[in-house]
């Protein structure tokens, strides 16, 4: 058998540009009037804050830019939310729901 492809854990950093893999979809579900995240074998219902992060995962916006925008939107200091945003994205990257 051919050697296994070398895989490494993705580490989310300030300069990362996160995006959703093509098999992970964030879509509005009209029956429940709620945003759903569809992924292999699992459906999740992101809350408002999670949705605000996920909708910025477009492969263009950096984590730093996200933090800046969210700080303005939530009227909170950037340093307060930096850890939360990085932690959230790292957890999602570990679950293979976010790429960068």
């Amino acid at each position, binding site marked *: *058998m051919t050697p*296994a*492809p070398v*895989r*490494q*854990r*993705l580490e989310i950093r300030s300069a990362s540009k996160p995006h959703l*893999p*093509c*098999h992970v*979809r964030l*879509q509005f*579900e*009209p*029956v*429940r009037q709620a945003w*759903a995240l*569809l*992924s*292999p*074998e699992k*459906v999740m219902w992101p809350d408002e804050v999670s949705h605000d992060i996920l909708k910025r995962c477009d492969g263009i916006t950096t984590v730093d830019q996200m933090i800046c925008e969210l700080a303005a939107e939530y009227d909170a200091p950037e340093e307060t939310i930096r850890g939360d945003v990085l932690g959230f994205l790292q957890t999602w*990257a*570990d*679950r*293979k729901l976010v790429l960068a």
Partner: protein
Amino acid sequence: MTAPGPPIGMLAELTHRCPLQCPYCSNPAKLLKANTELETADWIRVFDEAADLGILQIHLSGGEPTLRTDLGDIVQALSSRGVYTNLITAGVNLKPGRIMTLKQAGLDHVQLSIQGATAEVTELIGNMKGAFEQKMATAKAVREAAMPLTLNAPIHRHNIHQVQDFIELALQLDADRLEIANVQYYGWALINRSKLMPAWDDVMRQIDIVEQAREQLRGILLIDFVTPDYYAEFPKPCMGGWARDAFMVTPDGTAMPCHAAHTIPDLRFDNVKDKPLGEIWQNSAAFDAYRGTDWMQEPCRSCERREADFGGCRCQALAITGNAAATDPACSKSPLHEKMLKIAGQTQTPNNNSDSFAYRRIGASVE
């Protein structure tokens, strides 16, 4: 009882036909023949109704769903409604290019079953020569089509020593997820229970291996672990709760809360040919029977975990206790939990001989 919320997922058993004969198959002992299967138009109408109802994921299963030549049309119909499609396949007898065609029809994800980490064990369990090599080729085709791959390894006495090998194989095949799924003993697995049940020491070793691999492979490989009921402390919330957010439809259109619900006597099932899916979801007598918590007996009724595990599996409760409303004996609070452990213990003979498997095939089961 309050009206149920919309369902999230549906398992569609498109056919009971399958080239493999695994002795733990989740299909009923009495398999449905091809001439009873729903037509393409029926399935597509049902899937339309499912999307209207708010269903977001359809698991296309069987038997072997790729034996349906209309699978591409079905996937396309679902995809056009934004429904997430998951193909659950044995990955054998697929024509070259089939996976790519399904991807082009909109297929989102493939779950490939793997009976052993070696050709020998895979052939023994599925009773099919050459199955392993074909599965390897299917895995490769899935990754070449840039689709995410999950390997599903049902675990029992004959492959529990291969758990580490399954993990390495998953990495080798560039899978995103690996399900180490200890066999659940109903249907064919119940018939073959004494030949499949693993030993306590092997189960414990397996748990150590999985925990260690999860730590080491964080962010590299996701490992789902389906715990072995007979050695559990608490039961699994079967189907996430009876008719709570998922259900299944059999090849002939029978809507059931779970795979094995037909084993429970006196349940009345509806058929998608006779009634709209929404009406079945809301009003089917079989769906209502164990929905919510009102039906529960003690110790479930007053248990703080009643909304976490929903009393476990009704079919297992029936199989072991004779009462489908009893607490699943996988639960340490069940008065029959000891009996379950004893059943597991009694099967721990050093017999690794599989000559006597009742292989899954039409007419093979002892009623």
